[in-house]
């Protein structure tokens, strides 16, 4: 099983790093359905996988200076505070209702991602926290600013609140918020989202570790595979066309919408 988990984790890590999603939404169903691993051990291994993705991808993205660290931290205050107060939302909404809401919302987000520009260099440097990076694919300097920061922060707070309830890291929510709402280029968005999901997962992983809920026989092969896969995914991500990343992310959102709708219907 060690080798199989290791090989699967390479693919999960590559996809997670490539799209800035961490990979928890893929790991947990895979481990529970295919390997019949108890749900808590699967979540524990998934948290380790998200951290490994964030750390391995972070090392590559830091080398390219793609991560907007300041924005990541401003939004992380929102998502972590949101997750902390998740209990308030739990009192009003059941996970099934939330899954149903996401099943409706995600196709809309997928559709709104169509408006993202294919040429990142064409963005005007407007808004707060203006910064720049060098696109390794085009070799051009991309200057950009963050638009609608208060709205983005509020959405990040709500996303953190909801993602805790749904048991997901929130990468698939962070990416549309930053790219569609705040006007951050997709490559910078993915790198920054990778940074953020690592912080969120670390908090939960420490709790899981302290409660002894991490099974090393599952978590270790996954961590090793993800460390390899995430390096590959982030290497490809920095060199891929933004259009390719956008298309891949839209496909992921569609799959997630179907998954959420299925869970909402079947419970």
């Amino acid at each position, binding site marked *: 099983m060690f080798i199989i988990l290791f090989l699967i984790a390479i693919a999960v890590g590559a996809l997670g790093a490539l799209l800035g999603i961490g990979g928890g939404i893929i790991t947990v169903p895979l481990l529970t359905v295919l390997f019949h691993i108890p749900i808590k051990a699967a979540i524990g291994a998934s948290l380790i996988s998200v951290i490994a993705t964030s750390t391995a991808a972070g090392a590559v993205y830091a080398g390219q200076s793609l991560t907007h660290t300041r924005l990541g931290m401003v939004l992380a*205050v929102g998502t*972590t505070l949101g997750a902390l107060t998740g209990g308030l939302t739990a009192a009003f909404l059941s996970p099934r209702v939330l899954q149903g809401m996401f099943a409706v919302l995600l196709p809309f987000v997928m559709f709104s991602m169509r408006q993202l520009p294919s040429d990142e260099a064409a963005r005007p440097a407007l808004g707060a926290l203006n910064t720049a990076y060098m696109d390794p694919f085009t070799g051009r300097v991309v200057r950009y600013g963050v638009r609608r920061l208060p709205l983005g922060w509020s959405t990040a707070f709500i996303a953190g609140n909801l993602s805790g309830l749904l048991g997901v890291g929130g990468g698939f929510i962070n990416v549309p918020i930053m790219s569609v709402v705040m006007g951050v280029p997709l490559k910078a968005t993915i790198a920054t989202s990778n940074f953020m999901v690592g912080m969120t997962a*670390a908090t939960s992983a420490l709790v899981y570790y302290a409660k002894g809920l991490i099974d090393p026989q599952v978590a270790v092969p996954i961590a090793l595979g993800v460390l390899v896969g995430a390096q590959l995914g982030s290497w490809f991500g920095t060199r891929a066309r933004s259009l390719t990343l956008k298309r891949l992310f839209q496909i992921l959102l569609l799959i997630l919408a179907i998954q959420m709708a299925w869970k909402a219907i079947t419970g």
Partner: protein
Amino acid sequence: MRRQIDYARLIPGIDVAEISEEDEAALRTIASTRQIDRIVQRLLMVTLVVSAILFIAGAIWQVVAHLPPVHHVTQIADLTHTNGPDLLFSLGLIVLIVSPILRLIGVAVGLAQQGDWAFVGVTALVLAVMLASLWIG
């Protein structure tokens, strides 16, 4: 000449002759970002290498010594009372789990070096919220 040397070092392969005034401002931003990113990259590489070595050594030890697999991590307080692959796996997992926290500390150091105290404060706030989550969890 100074401009050429700085930018060529900053972004290998860049066509310095084509740098506009606007790009020059952007490149200054990239330079300050890279200062922080270099600290972060080194920290992350160290944690990656250390955890990978511990995992691989533990796996080899487990296979070579034909030891039965242990399905739980050893708590930090008990690490001195255990040995073998279990110890290596548990240590590797701890190193990996704390890597995002080390990254935050690295960012705070980089921001402090640049005198960006407002964002050092934001980093401290993120760490405080993470600790609060941990305490509640």
